[in-house]
């Protein structure tokens, strides 16, 4: 599990926690940062509490799997449920259609990860013991009602109720037919102007979700420098606004140097990968292979106002759909157990094996 001990040393800034309790979607973090939830509680834990305000999350897609859509859906639903305005851009002709696939928060009795009292009897030999830590944490979280509002559990099979995304709260942009990214840039500017960052309290938080930037069917996919300047512009706008942005892109379709530049731009860098179906070797190597749909790699985690990096115990997680409804991320349990996979990002090698990988060792 990731290191979210939550202890504060005497050197951290004292921040008034009054502002966070008024707005439900925001949590106080260490070093004077505020977090918003990504919509997936496991991911929030891995990132050290959530997505810091003002950061840019980039997700490297896998051409063979739609897992980035799962991340986007949870992110967008979380914002809508907490009344945070959303700007959504996608390469399809009708982005509004995607809103119909957003998941609904599940009701309390659907929660699956209940502590099974029967398991306490008898001797348990805990091989791969870390999987059992989650049970202890659940009982702890249950006492703090406020934690539930920060991040909801989403049921991917139930669509979000219409009233959440009708009206002015969601703005959709299609980047398919526009000749360049100027229109998208303008929309982002006007959207982010609603959430200026002052030293006062945070009134509202905005979310930007851009799906498949530089998809091949968009005209701007040829204009790599323009896309890069758009990303740096977005990053600078975010830094002076109370908002977060999630951008997904297909790294296998970009040239290698641009892929590297994009990765450097990200504050939080994730990548998703597909796994082969019915692979007996993988089934032997990993426990719980049947429930897995893919892998999530965490390459970079944002740390603001501090020089202490966040060192994760593990950077590869398996994406599982519990009962095909709830998205969970789990540490990989394999033998022999290995902690980190090294500090390299840009490994977009997936099952295809044909994509070039570039590793950057720091």
């Amino acid at each position, binding site marked *: 599990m990731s290191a979210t001990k939550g202890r504060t040393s005497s050197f951290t800034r004292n921040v008034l926690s009054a502002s966070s309790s008024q707005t439900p979607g925001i949590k106080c973090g260490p070093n004077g940062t505020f977090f918003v939830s990504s919509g997936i509680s496991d991911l929030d834990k891995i990132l050290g509490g959530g997505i810091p305000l003002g950061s840019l999350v980039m997700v490297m897609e896998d051409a063979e799997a739609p897992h980035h859509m799962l991340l986007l859906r949870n992110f967008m639903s979380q914002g809508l449920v907490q009344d945070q305005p959303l700007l959504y851009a996608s390469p399809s002709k009708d982005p509004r259609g995607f809103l119909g696939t957003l998941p609904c928060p599940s009701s309390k009795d659907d929660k699956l990860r209940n502590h099974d009292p029967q398991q306490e009897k008898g001797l348990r030999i805990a091989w791969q013991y870390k999987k059992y830590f989650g049970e202890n944490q659940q009982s702890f979280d249950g006492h703090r009602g406020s934690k539930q509002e920060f991040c909801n559990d989403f049921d991917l099979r139930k669509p979000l109720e219409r009233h959440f995304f009708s009206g002015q709260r969601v703005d959709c942009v299609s980047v398919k037919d526009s000749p360049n990214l100027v229109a998208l840039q303008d929309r982002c500017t006007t959207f982010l102007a609603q959430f200026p960052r002052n030293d006062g309290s945070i009134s509202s938080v905005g979310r930007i979700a851009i799906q498949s930037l530089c998809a091949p069917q968009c005209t701007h996919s040829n204009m790599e420098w323009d896309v890069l300047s758009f990303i740096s512009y977005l990053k600078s706008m975010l830094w002076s606004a109370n908002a977060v942005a999630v951008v997904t892109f297909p790294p296998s379709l970009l040239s290698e140097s641009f892929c590297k530049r994009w990765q450097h731009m990200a504050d939080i860098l994730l990548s998703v990968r*597909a796994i082969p179906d019915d692979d007996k070797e993988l089934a032997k190597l990993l426990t719980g292979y049947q429930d897995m749909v893919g892998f999530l790699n965490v390459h970079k985690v944002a740390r603001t106002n501090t020089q202490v990096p966040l060192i994760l115990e593990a950077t590869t997680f398996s994406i599982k759909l519990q009962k095909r409804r709830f998205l969970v991320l789990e540490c*990989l349990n394999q033998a*022999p157990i290995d902690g980190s996979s090294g500090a390299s990002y840009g490994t977009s090698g997936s099952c295809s094996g044909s994509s070039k990988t570039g590793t950057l060792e720091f």
Partner: protein
Amino acid sequence: MAESICRTLRDGSLEGEHAPALTIKDTAASPFGFDVFAYVLSQLSSFILAGKSQSRVVVVVAFTRSPSFYVDLLKRRGLDVTSFHKWIQILDCYTDPLGWKGKLVESGNAMCISDEASSVTHLCKDVRDLDNLYSLILELGKGLAGQGKAHFSVAIDSVNEMLRHASLSRVAGLLSNLRSHDQISCIYWLLHSDLHEVRVTSSVEYMSSMVANVEPLNPSASGQRWDSENVSLLKQNFQKGKLNVRFKRRNGRVRLMCEEFHIEQSGINFTPVSSEDGTINQGLLPKVQFSLQLSEKEQTERAKVLLPFEHQGNGKPIQIYDGRRSLEDNKNEATLASTGNLQRNEASGEGEIIYFRDSDDERPDSDEDPDDDLDI
């Protein structure tokens, strides 16, 4: 695997989803992509005729073969010619793709296609205008299938030809528009991957939900000198090959399947692959710091290393192994290294253990405890 591809295309798309799209990819080493394409076309046509598929009509966008070729192809597969006009339409981008013939002085150039084909053919004079191409495809499809909910499928002869005349983003835009159209139930196309940059090929694969890769049976044999060994392998490549299919499933997993095929006069035949080759991509999992397994080479080398024990455990009389003198058996077996002797040990490869005995006086396996000498 070819069967399952055809079945997936036949079943079409669900409500609100993109249509399944197949990319058939080949290279010069195994140039049988068109045979696979023709196979898929004829299979799906027979499904349409039998009423088993979601789509009722197929629109063939023909860039590399004339419409008469397709009509003859389907005739040879036993499909009834007279009913063609009910379920197939061919968009002819082969005869006059850039509209040059219309500008020739002798404008009496009749289209040299057969009568059977002409009833189902529609000529396209400008393949550079992809919007026009898109609307033509839709028009042909809807014209036969009817408006409303009826589905049709689209077969594109060669994406390479489209990429000759238009940019990648325009072609990708057309393909994604076709895929997301409500009335299109499935779409498949052929791509020769060695004619383009990797980026182009991966973009086209990105747009598809199934990729069928036509590969030579013996990839190492192609491109080498014609030795006597290679010739037979190369000859195999002329008629046979492997079809590797990657299915992108809805839940995000990728199904990998493999089949062998054999080109014959009548067409292409698929057989299940002879040897199962299960490979997992080690790049997926984080690298393990220990290597607990020995490779085969390492195992044989380990077996060959002669250990410097007093006896080798093979029943021979015990002899003191002295680093300065070689054992008597060495004349027959592999030699061991000694101080002044630099004999190379060929039999046991590079593994050597150099051991120098402490003293000559020790008898083998002596029961003496050296600590007994101590006087405390």
